[in-house]
């Protein structure tokens, strides 16, 4: 469809230009906006602070990284603890202590691997059987029968006799 006559009127009506002070008005409006400064001054003001803040954050992260316990150090610490516990406690008790002790770094790998075996497999099986016995009625909870062996004779303690010291014994006398 070709142009309508009214469009010529529209084109004429819209061929208006802004006033010569239009651009100045825009700049004045931008400058007058509350809390708005030019990009140049904003960068001058904030860039040093931003760089300093980033440097501080990087420093803190670097320090934390250097002091944080690594997986290797955690493993060594755990190994040290297990050595102490196995040396000072009975083997069955040490296995419980190892599982309940506060672990410094309980990593996923360690949890997937399971607890370290510090007692023999047969001893562990026997212990588990002992614990599970009463539950499954495989262990007879009846009291142990009284032994038929003769009772031990009463222990006789003879009185202690202290002999008095003799006068001529020479105690304290230089010989």
């Amino acid at each position, binding site marked *: *469809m070709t*142009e*309508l006559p*009214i*469009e010529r*009127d*529209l*084109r*004429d*009506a*819209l*061929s*208006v*230009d*802004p*006033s010569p002070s*239009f*651009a100045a*008005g*825009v700049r004045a*409006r*931008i400058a007058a*906006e509350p809390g*708005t400064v*030019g*990009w*140049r001054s*904003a*960068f*001058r003001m904030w*860039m*040093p602070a931003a*760089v300093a803040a*980033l*440097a501080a954050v*990087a*420093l803190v992260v*670097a320090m934390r990284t250097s002091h944080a316990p690594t997986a290797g150090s955690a493993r060594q610490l755990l190994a040290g603890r297990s050595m102490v516990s196995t040396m000072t406690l009975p083997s069955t008790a040490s296995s419980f202590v190892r599982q309940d002790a506060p672990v410094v770094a309980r990593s996923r790998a360690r949890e997937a691997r399971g607890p370290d075996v510090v007692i023999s497999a047969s001893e562990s099986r026997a212990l588990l059987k002992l614990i599970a016995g009463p539950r499954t009625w495989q262990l007879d909870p009846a009291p142990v029968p009284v032994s038929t062996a003769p009772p031990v004779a009463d222990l006789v303690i003879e009185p202690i006799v202290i002999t008095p010291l003799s006068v001529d014994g020479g105690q304290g006398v230089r010989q």
Partner: protein
Amino acid sequence: MRTFAGQFGDQLLTVAAADEAVGLEDDFETRLAESSRIAFRVAFSVLRHREDAEDVAQEAFAKAHRNFSQLRDRDRFRAWLVRMTWRMALDRQRANRRHARLDHADWEARALGASTPTPADALEADERSRRLWTAIDALPEKLRIVVVLVNIEDHDLNEVARLVGAPIGTVKWRLFAARRKLKRLLQ
């Protein structure tokens, strides 16, 4: 600890950022010079009041300045500004309903040329103006902006398609529909 190279790199980044800020400012000044006229005309097509149109167009530029650094594709600034100005002008029109105050002085001077208008000519121009804007205002918004931009941009349909963010086929169809509706309204 940061090495000297790291600190030097930060300094370079700071200088580069400052340069970029200066570049943004210069870029915006260029866009302001290029797009002042179309922003004003778009606002004027809605408001038909010179002071209001300037006010809205300036406000649109100020808003564009606030978000200019976030505009990824600077080539789309003109389209972005036009759409923003159009929306702001419609908001202003709804807010104050001053569109009834037509800028008769501008209209009559352009419609009648440099000749001194007689009372009869002035009356005729006034009637033409009233009919024109009544018909334009009766168009749906999507058709209206196409008609306005086609007449601002001297029928460059590719540019109009870029400005409204629609395919050229859609623009052609909207222009056709707008003209058909205008013809019906003016009969």
